[in-house]
């Protein structure tokens, strides 16, 4: 399957991130089209395109937009989720760096569709360079009349605010994000009401991922049929895949959904020289791991689910045989324990528990019976926590046990650092050797 650069098509141009660069390549032409179509037709188009949210859950975007009540007399808001904090996920940051105007054009169109006159981009606070770039792009767009009152003579007004987070994974969860945006401490809200009904400042709000929104101008410009010519029935379109880990050429590969991992891996130059694949995760640390036997499965929401994993953010992480599964899982749990917001008991306390047990195995001090406890504890979190972060934390261990139980057994006697030289799995291992 060939790569299909759309959002990433012009990233090789040195000024792809400028207004001029974007316009030179046809940018801001979808806007006029959308204004001509009218908001309802835009929603219908996005609905028909089958675009699914790229933030991880894959929720149909047009459907989400259609939940926003119309003529309710309340302000509506569009919030772009650019918190990208999932371990292994690195696609929204590059999009904002290299093609911020596609995002901005998408924001204008989406806001127009859901009748929002105020939009926000919530960017994780750890990436000041990206925040600066977005600010600059918004400034350019404002100066060009794409943001502000009566955009391009359409009568549509939009204000766009770039907001920086303060360093919390949980603020990527849409309702926690809204709390954070409102100036509160970011913790997920009880649903219902869903944001589409009562979101930011208790007004109808659509929260979408950066990549989701960046797709919109291309769909409006090229049409539903064009979009559906990529991907599968249930996973139409293309995806900005970010391949990381033990591959020759980690990076961004935009390809149709449904491309098998094996092909994507080839584009990335395959596993590191002299090494072989041990396991991989299709979309961030929160999805169950897969192995070589799953390499030929198409990267679609449905196929990954069938294989017992999830497409997630569509940012595959690849690990070769130098990797200690125990160490990898323990590392992820360090992350989840640190990022648990503390609101609900299973995630707050369960992570403390798993973390304690995993470190025992990582240090070769585990006991076999504790593997049962670990599995049990993960089961006590999964499906019982308040939000999906708890579920995510309960995912790595059981999925690793499925394929690498013996490594955990070994953790009853041997520290992971002894079984697997940590240096061997680093980028600089070759330099050393």
């Amino acid at each position, binding site marked *: 399957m060939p790569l299909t650069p759309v959002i990433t098509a012009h990233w090789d141009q040195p000024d792809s991130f400028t207004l001029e660069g974007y316009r030179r390549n046809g940018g801001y032409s979808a806007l006029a089209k959308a204004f001509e179509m009218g908001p309802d037709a835009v929603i219908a188009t996005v609905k028909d395109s089958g675009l699914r949210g790229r933030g991880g859950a894959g929720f149909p975007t047009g459907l989400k937009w259609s939940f926003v009540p119309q003529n309710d007399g309340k302000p509506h808001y569009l919030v772009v989720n650019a918190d990208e904090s999932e371990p292994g996920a690195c696609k929204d940051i590059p999009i904002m760096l290299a093609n911020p105007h596609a995002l901005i054009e998408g924001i204008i169109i989406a806001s127009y569709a859901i009748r929002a006159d105020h939009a926000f981009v919530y960017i994780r606070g750890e990436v000041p360079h990206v925040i600066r770039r977005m600010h600059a792009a918004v400034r350019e767009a404002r100066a060009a009349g794409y943001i502000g009152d009566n955009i391009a003579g359409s009568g549509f007004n939009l204000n766009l605010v770039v907001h920086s987070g303060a360093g*919390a994974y*949980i603020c990527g969860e849409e309702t926690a994000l809204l709390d954070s945006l409102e100036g509160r*401490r970011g*913790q997920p809200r*009880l649903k219902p009401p869903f944001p589409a009904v009562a979101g930011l400042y208790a007004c109808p709000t659509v929260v979408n991922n950066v990549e989701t929104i960046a797709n919109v101008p291309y769909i409006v410009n090229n049409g539903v049929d064009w979009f559906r010519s990529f991907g599968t029935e249930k996973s139409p379109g293309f995806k900005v895949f970010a391949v990381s880990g033990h591959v020759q050429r980690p990076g961004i590969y935009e390809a149709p959904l449904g491309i098998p991992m094996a092909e994507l891996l080839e584009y990335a130059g395959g596993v590191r020289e002299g090494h072989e694949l041990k396991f991989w995760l299709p979309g961030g640390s929160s999805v169950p791991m897969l192995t070589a036997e799953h390499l030929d499965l198409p990267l679609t929401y449905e196929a990954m689910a069938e294989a017992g994993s999830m497409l997630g953010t569509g940012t595959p992480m690849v690990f070769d045989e130098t990797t200690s599964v125990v160490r990898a899982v323990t590392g992820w749990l360090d992350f989840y*324990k*640190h*990022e*648990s*917001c*503390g*609101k*609900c*008991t*299973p995630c*707050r*306390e*369960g*992570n*403390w*528990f798993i973390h*304690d*047990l995993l470190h025992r195995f990582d240090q070769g001090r585990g006991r076999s019976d504790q593997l049962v*406890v670990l599995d*049990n*504890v993960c*089961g*006590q979190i999964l*499906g*019982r*926590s*308040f939000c999906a972060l708890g579920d995510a934390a309960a995912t790595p261990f059981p999925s690793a046990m499925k394929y690498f139980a013996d490594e955990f057994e070994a953790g009853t006697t041997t520290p992971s650092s002894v079984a697997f030289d940590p240096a061997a799995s680093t980028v600089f291992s070759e330099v050393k050797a």
Partner: protein
Amino acid sequence: MTVTESGSNEVTVPEGHVAFSIDGVSMTAEKGTLIIRAAEQLGIEIPRFCDHPLLDPVAACRMCLVEIEGQPKPQPACAIPVGDNMVVRTQRTSKVADDAQKGVMEFLLLNHPLDCPICDKGGECPLQNQAMSAGRAESRFEGSKRTFPKPINVSAQILLDRERCVSCARCTRFADEIAGDAFIDLLERGAQQQVGISEDTPFDSYFSGNTVQICPVGALTNARYRFRARPFDLVSVPTVCEHCASGCSLRTDVRRGEVQRRLAGDEPEINEEWNCDKGRFAFPYLTEDRITHPLVRDDNGDLRTASWPEALGMAADALTAAVGSAAVLTGGRLTSEDAFAYSKFARTILQTDNVDFRARPHSAEEADFLRSVVAGSEGPTYTDLQSAPAVVLVAFEPEDESPIVFLRLRKAVTKGTTKVYAVAPWASPGLSKLGATVLAAGPGQEIQALAGSEDVMQALRQPGAVLMVGERAATAPGLLSWAAQTAADTGARLAWVPRRAGERGALEAGLLPGMAPAAWGELAAGVGFPGVIEALVTAAEPEEALVPVPDPEAPESASTEVVPVEDEEPEPPFRALVLAGFDPRDVPDGAALVEGFAQVPTVIALATHHNDATRAADIVFPVAAVTEKAGSFIDWEGRRRPFPQVFRESLILSDAGVLAAIADEMLQDFGPADPIALRAEASTAQPATRPDRPSVAGAGARETSAGEAVLSTWRQLVDDGSMQAGEPYLAATARPAVVRIGPANAADLGISDGDPVTLTGTTGSVTLPALITDMPAGVVWAPGNSGANLVADLGVTSGDTVRVSVGRTS
């Protein structure tokens, strides 16, 4: 609710209800009912921590997970409303639910210190209890627990042990949703999540104690009760609060003859499950510095301990000689039974109508208002407030003066559609938390502000609107007349809210001149506080004053003729005064009253504690405090709030008991003095009320000259009140005493926030830091009894003029 046997399909579902089953029992409930509440109706208790029926659901603790057919994951029963045909299985019938709950319980205990043996909650702890019912016997966690330094203060009164906290957010939600004092919040994340305050803002909420009560673990404790008792050693008695006229139900927990703590009682129609910190913590006065024996004045003029027979005999003799020439003055804190006893004793035994309970600034207009509009009236009630479209507050600051009225208004505003209007000199914290529309007006300007507001008049005309006036209205001439007239004109319901618990009961007992039941016979029209004080002052006028003063301009030689002083003893203004629970520092001219004691042959005081009046009296009787007798208060709604005797073994006589004993000595028949008999008698001896409403014209604001301002004042909830004595932790949470002054007047004086400002009245002055506040020019505000008692120490009350100066007076 309808419950049918499992399998039967004959449930009829009423309009607005849904049918569902829990553990195989079919039932119906109103739409929107949460599963956890529906299960309670069936007697099924789903374990819970964060759930609280009066707080919005958060579904945070995950203790209440149940299985709902068709749902892939167990669901929190505390947050999910029952749905039509929903099939719910709790821990009793579902392994999924049971496992989920056991898992959550294991997690909750993971980082919990399990220091139950030294925890105040031990023995009444939902975590302990539910660990027994929903927990595993053994912990599988072998790691080390998260630790925090043991308790830290979130206020002077409230301590927080973060290790014990289960992050249920009940306390923070209470503070935010109910009290509106979001001074505590959850901070940090993950297992480090903890309750905290912002650095310079302690949890000084009037309602902070409620958080201790609803904390499901021993994380929150209060300094008053900490380490004092074990719940299983306590005897709990349902009581009623004696502090304000809100009428809270309380639970008084005692051990070995001493109150250990007081908790809010569950009274859905009144205080729901809350109360204020004063009612909760201000009880040490009950045991501190009590008068324990009768006292009589000896030949040297000193009070000495006397036996009961001696003191009763002396009192009987003095009162027998005083029949027809006595006065009975009471404080505002008597039970309604004791108040009735005084009313009856004055009228039937002392043959006098000289009675008054209004030991505070008052007016003749107010007496007319109380007799004509308030006495015998019913409602409006708390429930009426909650459903009122509009409530207009006049001379009334609910958060300070009747905290449960404040909480109910807040609920009406936040959960309902009630709109609050207030005429006040400044937007107090309480009014702000009610989102009240404030008509800015100083004392005397109220009528103009209210009548001039089309919004307010329109609001009052809405069916169900309530007009609430506070006792301070007595100090603004015409205001009560206006309120009565306006209520009649608009159809708004009128509520009079006194500050003290006993005032309404005293009114209903007829403790005002002219209110004697007809059955007690004709009596000459009596006088109340002002009349008594005036008579005493007149009588005390030094005779020299009657002597013409020599004219200094007149030539030295010109002799002035001195009027000869009469030798004959003049008839005293009263032959006896009976003072009941009365503190002269509460009334204007109280000092003159005490000085006037010299003009009265016998002053008899019945009191629990000494004050300037008991110290100057001739005979003093100790009486029972509220825990030592049964009785009732009548709250601002007019609702009777009966309470039992907490210390059944107490032999201390109630006021009524002492009066009956004196009557016995006088060979008079007083009748039974027990509260039940008195209550029965009171219900048949209806006091006479006067039909006419007062119609005093408004006087407008007082004229002030340069350097003067009109004083606005009320007492803050937590202040120097004598019944708050002995509770330093409560006192430390009081709002700081300040002088509030408008920006223009502050600029004239050249002061800014924090600068000392001195207010000088007729008898003294007070210096407090200034707080520049948006308020009408020419008005200053200071708390009534925080640092200085304005009535007693400055001789001023709301509406009076005070001199305002910068800095301290020497």
